């Protein structure tokens, strides 16, 4: 479990650049997510949303720039996914959250298994906790889906449920949702959104990444709009209507 702390910003990035070879994915991005704030990170495909998220969650380091988590500067050299877990950052990826052929109990604990000193997994304990998460936190009841079921037996919404349940169990300060509503039915989208609201009520911060403004508008406090590796606008929810925001985005899309 991550240690609890008071902080102003759950995460802040400053002047982040990321190059893949000669291709610039991010060209000096700065933004922050306050405590208990839900930020909608909006942008078209290729805007750099996922790259930015992978830097924040420790998948890879930026080429340049600084990262502050809970107001404290992070040494990017030592920063990785496990570190991010310790800092209370949990991520729900659109399609990379679960190992398809693996049992759900394994999927809950991959990357931070409960083991003995020799590294052998305490299977019974992991299954017990996984069972609890499924029943209590995400409400998989009487479903024919057990902790032994393989992830590929689940629908898209159920997968997001598992990934979100995992994030809730590990009690994150910041939950990053990377396109959580892609390929979901309308009903399932509503469920994901209700989760985000609930997480906010519990005092968690969220980054909600999407290219669909309609999905993020109801839950976000603020919108950060990313275009071709740069932040082009930061808009508070009260300042614009959904329609204005949409027109603004369309303008950007047409300029391309």
């Amino acid at each position, binding site marked *: 479990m991550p240690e609890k702390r008071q902080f102003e910003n759950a995460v802040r990035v400053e002047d982040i650049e990321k190059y893949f070879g000669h291709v610039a994915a991010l060209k000096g991005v700065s933004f922050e997510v306050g405590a208990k704030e839900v930020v909608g990170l909006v942008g078209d495909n290729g805007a750099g949303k996922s790259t930015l998220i992978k830097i924040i969650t420790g998948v890879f380091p930026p080429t340049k720039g600084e990262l502050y988590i809970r107001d404290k500067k992070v040494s990017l050299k030592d920063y990785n996914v496990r570190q991010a877990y310790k800092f209370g950052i949990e991520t729900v990826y659109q399609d*990379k*959250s679960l190992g398809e052929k693996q049992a759900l109990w394994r999927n809950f604990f*991959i990357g931070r298994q409960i*083991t003995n000193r020799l590294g052998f997994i305490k299977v019974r304990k992991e299954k017990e906790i996984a069972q609890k998460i499924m029943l209590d936190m995400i409400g998989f009841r009487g*479903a*024919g889906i057990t902790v032994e079921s393989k992830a590929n037996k689940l629908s898209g919404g*159920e997968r997001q449920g598992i990934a979100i349940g995992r994030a809730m169990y590990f009690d994150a300060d910041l939950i990053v949702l990377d396109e959580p509503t892609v390929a979901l039915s309308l009903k399932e989208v509503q469920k994901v959104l209700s*989760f985000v609201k609930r997480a906010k009520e519990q005092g968690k911060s969220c980054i909600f990444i999407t290219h669909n403004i309609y999905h993020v508008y109801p839950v976000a406090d603020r919108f950060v709009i990313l275009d071709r590796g740069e932040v082009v606008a930061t808009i508070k929810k009260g300042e614009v209507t959904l329609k204005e925001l949409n027109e603004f985005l369309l303008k950007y899309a047409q300029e391309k």
Partner: protein
Amino acid sequence: MKRIKPIITGVAEIEGLPIIVVYLVLMGIFLLTAPRVFTGYRIYMSFLQTVPPPLILALGLTLVIAAGEIDLSFSAIIAFSGFVFSFIFRTLGTPWLALILALGAGALVGFINGLLVAKVGVPSIMATLAAQFFWNGLTILLCGGLSWNIKEIKSHFIHTLFVGRIGGIVPAQSLWAVAVAVFLWFILNRHKFGEHILFIGDNVDVARVMGVNVTATKIKLFTFMGLISAFAGVLLTLEMINFWTTQGAGFLLPSLASVFIGGTSIAGGSGSIVGSFFGAYIVGSLEAGVVATGIGGYWTRLTTGFVMAASVVLNIILGEAKEKGLGEKLKKSVFLKGVFEGKP
């Protein structure tokens, strides 16, 4: 039909059971067609003597294939480690040091494979194929193409420990192979390292974003495969009290076949240690069995091919039966109604 389905599903749940059944059926056929040979114990002792080295290789390969990788260099490691073992023993007369250095040599070859695959990004089939040529070539160069007899090793305890005859009958290496199988079963199914292997083989991106150190895990995996190949090489050298440059060359395809017969898929993300264990015994028994049956040695390869194809098909059919069983349960599920309970 409805009654049969749960039985099929249940059977498919037990790891390796289908392949154990195939093995027993095969033995049954040999008992009927070559009763004189297969009612005596000698043929079984001969299997217990010859199967362990390719079996141990198949066990290691199961982990490599479960990670979605492949290793073709192990046959060269058998020769290279056998060379190191014999060379040290002949020049220094120290069998234990010879063992340690042979295992170290295998681990080193595996480590280099691991670096090439995980750090440089060479596809494992290319990296390990190159390694096979390289290390086998180096072995031939170093020993001048000669084979060496090391019959003096018979008087050392190391010979008794690894390839002695327990009670004068049972080859010790068969028990070592069982020990390796049990150990690797726990590593693959109950250890963090095994779980990382499974997730990497399943989807390397998922493994990475969930905090698995993919590079380190792959390097460890190939190093381990090198180590275990060297162990098989030492067992073979001890059993034959001889080192020769092409030792192990004949294990390449049979060991791979054992893994696939055992139900491990080339797709990665899953692996059956029990399956590979019996797969190796099936492959190892076929030749002797077919010859003893009297239809002639020319038939052995054809039979191996047939058994392999049949086993793979059987595994796929059973896998589908398993999915259908779960699929039916899924249809009854109402759990989406309960997902994310709370305010809409």
